[in-house]
């Protein structure tokens, strides 16, 4: 009950911020529209709408990391958390309260991206449902990463680290904008060692109905999700104790 009340508050804080809406929803949709127009004039296989949309949905989730990290960092700096630490809310209430409301927001963002892509020629099939469900572990990874960054960094640092660095990392290392094989070498190895490219490839596979291919990419995503969630919980509890 207490956790639900806190979670509701976190959802309101995020959804009522116009900057969040502009970046979280506006930016991926504009990219979809622009690249689809580009594709109509200069066809590139990577930017075909059925390939591009799953990648954009994965890229869009990097903003969820930014929102979640900013919310926590702001709560810490404004002393709202300090106030709430003197109430009966438990550490589990805080962690779930921050993480759970982000999940429907992340999935909502994904659904809107897919719906938006339909008029641009996206194949409309039941595979969209698989692709949306497949986003759950990816969303958990991104949300946990937000909790981790928000527990460690201040609002300004979060803006730089999650807003600039992480969104760029996610863009470059996911293979959404260019084929990683074209760069090859250490860059490709590094990308394969991180979850972003696996998330994008899993989404493409799910959308294409290739469940076996998707399963192969699921494992590293799950491993990263568990690892980052554990790290985020530890860091949050540590800062809670410090407060």
């Amino acid at each position, binding site marked *: *009950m*207490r956790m639900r*009340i*806190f979670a509701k*508050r976190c959802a*309101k*804080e995020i959804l*009522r*911020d116009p900057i969040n809406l502009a970046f979280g929803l506006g930016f991926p949709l504009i990219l979809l529209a622009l690249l689809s127009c580009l594709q109509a004039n200069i066809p590139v296989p990577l930017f075909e709408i059925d390939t591009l949309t799953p990648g954009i949905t994965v890229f869009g989730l990097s903003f969820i990391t930014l929102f979640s990290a900013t919310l926590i960092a*702001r709560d810490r*700096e*404004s*002393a*709202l958390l*300090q*106030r*709430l*630490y*003197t*109430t*009966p*809310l438990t550490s589990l209430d805080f962690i779930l309260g921050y993480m759970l409301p982000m999940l429907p927001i992340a999935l909502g963002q994904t659904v809107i991206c897919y719906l938006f892509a339909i008029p641009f020629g996206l194949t409309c099939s039941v595979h969209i449902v698989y692709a949306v469900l497949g986003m759950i572990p990816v969303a958990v990874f991104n949300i946990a990463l937000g909790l981790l960054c928000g527990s460690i960094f201040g609002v300004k640092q979060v803006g730089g680290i999650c807003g600039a660095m992480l969104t760029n990392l996610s863009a470059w290392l996911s293979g959404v904008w260019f084929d990683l094989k074209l760069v090859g070498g250490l860059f490709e190895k590094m990308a394969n060692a991180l979850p972003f490219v696996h998330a994008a490839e899993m989404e493409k596979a799910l959308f294409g109905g290739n469940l076996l291919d998707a399963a192969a990419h699921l494992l590293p995503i799950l491993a990263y999700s568990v690892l980052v969630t554990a790290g985020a919980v530890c860091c949050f509890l540590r800062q809670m104790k410090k*407060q």
Partner: protein
Amino acid sequence: MQAIQTKGLVRRYRNVTAVDGLDLEVRQGDLFALLGVNGAGKTTAIRMLSCLTVPTAGEAIVGGYSVVREPDRVKAQIGVSPQETALAPNLTVKENLELICGVYGFSKEKTKGKIRELAGVFGLESVLKRKAGKLSGGWQRRVSIAMALICEPKILFLDEPTLGLDVLARYELWEVIGRLKGKITIILTTHYMEEAEALSDRIGIMKNGRLLAEGTAEELKLRAGAEDFEKAFVTIIKERDV
């Protein structure tokens, strides 16, 4: 009866001793002001008393319970309004109050009644539907104190409640705090002399983590041989420098 009692309370951060052997007694129903220059240890003292910081040494009994051994029991009796406004900026004032009612497990009816009551006491009726982040500093402080009072605390901690406010907003907040006097025990930290003198039953003067003097404003003036309270404060602070 004592609402707060501390014995040799210490808080060290690596090489810095923020609070150094604080012995304090606050009577139930009193408004006690902790006065001191920046870095005197006022906020750290309040943080320890409100279970936000664990003491390095010593003991503090708040509302009859130990802050070290029984923090949950202490938390059930206190309300805290931190130095920063500590509001959810994108929530309306009403939603902020509802949030705190919710975390204390109030029913819908009790929440409604509590908000009506606090809105009356703090004059918040006109801003209930406005986003907290859009309010002026003075209004945010009022909301912050109202939030701290939702759990009907026996002891209220106000950390620098008027810091950064203009004169008018400060006087308005003094009126609000004055209305609470006698009903609950209030611990207020401030570095404004006139605030401590105008509001408090008793005043403790802190410097470098130590309590230098304690008493009513009149007692402190008498002790320092000063005509006004500001001079008394300076005398006491300098006395201990020698």
